[in-house]
């Protein structure tokens, strides 16, 4: 038991998972532009796109962000400070050994990759050392996943539905549990920087 848990410092987070669909590219760019280097937290993203097309998300974001950006590959280890996108047509999970695994299981809530699948697996792998961010989107994927992160003791953050380009996704998450933070992108970014600095120190 920790007697002084009342005035607990910011939690030590070891990875951040993010989910978005409609409007997500713009929101992610606003959230993640010009991150201070050296950046240490791994960032793992599911962004819904139509299946059956090669994704250029990694290239698009690599050109605009300062952190290295990749498409996640099966059994690839998560490297500190790198950003990863789920490949289209596959579910992306994080295993306990902090490596990715891919799967062709059927779509979940019409989505593959599914935000719920990534977040639930990451909650199992990281327990309380995980933060989940859910941004703009047109369906309810990610609500269940954020709840799983919350139940594992992690931090949950949702874009303010009033600001989100499409509010369905953040609203679904808020309806399912009370996220730790409901904030506009500018303040979500401040939260992310705070998690990074707690991670480093």
């Amino acid at each position: 038991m920790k007697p002084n848990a009342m005035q607990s410092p910011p939690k030590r987070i070891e990875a951040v998972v993010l989910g978005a669909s409609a409007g997500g590219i713009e929101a992610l760019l606003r959230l993640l532009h010009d991150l201070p280097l050296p950046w240490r937290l791994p960032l793992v993203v599911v962004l819904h796109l139509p299946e059956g097309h090669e994704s250029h998300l990694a290239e698009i974001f690599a050109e605009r962000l300062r952190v290295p950006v990749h498409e996640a590959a099966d059994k690839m280890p998560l490297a500190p400070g790198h950003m990863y996108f789920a490949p289209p047509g596959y579910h992306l999970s994080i295993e306990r050994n902090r490596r990715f695994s891919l799967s062709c299981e059927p779509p979940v809530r019409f989505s593959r990759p599914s935000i719920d699948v990534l977040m639930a697996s990451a909650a199992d792998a990281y327990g309380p050392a995980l933060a989940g961010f859910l941004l703009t989107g047109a369906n309810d994927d990610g609500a269940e996943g954020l709840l799983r992160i919350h139940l594992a003791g992690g931090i949950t953050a949702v874009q303010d539905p009033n600001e989100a380009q499409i509010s369905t996704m953040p609203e679904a998450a808020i309806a399912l549990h009370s996220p730790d933070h409901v904030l506009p992108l500018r303040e979500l970014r401040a939260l992310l920087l705070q998690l990074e600095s707690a991670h480093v120190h």
Partner: protein
Amino acid sequence: MNRTATPSPLPSPLSNTEIELRLLMEAIYLKYSYDFRDYTVASQKRRVLHALAQLGLPSISALQEKVLRDPGLFGRLLQYLTIPVSEMFRDPAYFLALRQHVVPILHTYPSVKVWVAGCSTGEEVFSLAILLREEGLLSRTQIYATDINPASLEKARQGIFPIESIRGYTANYQRAGGRSSFSDYYTAAYEAARFDPSLCAGVIFADHSLATDSVFAETQFVSCRNVLIYFNRELQDRALSLFHESLCHRGFLGLGAKESIDFSSYSERFDAHAKPERIYRKAT
């Protein structure tokens, strides 16, 4: 106790669900010799929890108790543990690359042996048979199509696929460099498309486990797509060791579009032959 509270970089302790999952896989292995112990946990956990819901059981421990005493229930559980998701000419670029970069070399052999490992319900087998026929190779090719799921193998033998999938398969076939009309290969009846049985005249369908069985033939080409993603790295290495042993000098290995040997112990023992399409060649 006066322990220093240092933040631990280790994963969180095993949950009860994960403990139950490991025990279930151990029980299945001891009882039925099916070895799922080295499958990736995240996906296996989802499938077992899905099976629990479908079978109306309250916990993995309850499932274990029943499975040990009821082989029929194990047969049903097996359908959830394996992933019978496939389509014909999936990732057309793969089949196009086979035509362009592998077939010309296969033509130099007097007879060809191909191993489709983890063939599931046979969509990949029929796709390869069509491709090999169009390339003039099928009559001298022996295809071994293996899987651990007897129900999938039986479906594969029949070569009957749902008619509603045919439109998508036709588009895939055309993008894969198909030289004929896709409808030449099947007859449609009721809700099903039955593929020309002569396509699999030279196919041996067999029960084979990449986790527990050994190599059974020398082959020139192994196609194993979207199977290794369900294995952890130890089991991936075991499967790759079988492929390496089976393949002849400079034989070919084809993997799924997002699979890679880069994170295995075999990365140095295969050369990339058509890297974007995940076609490798046994290194000298």
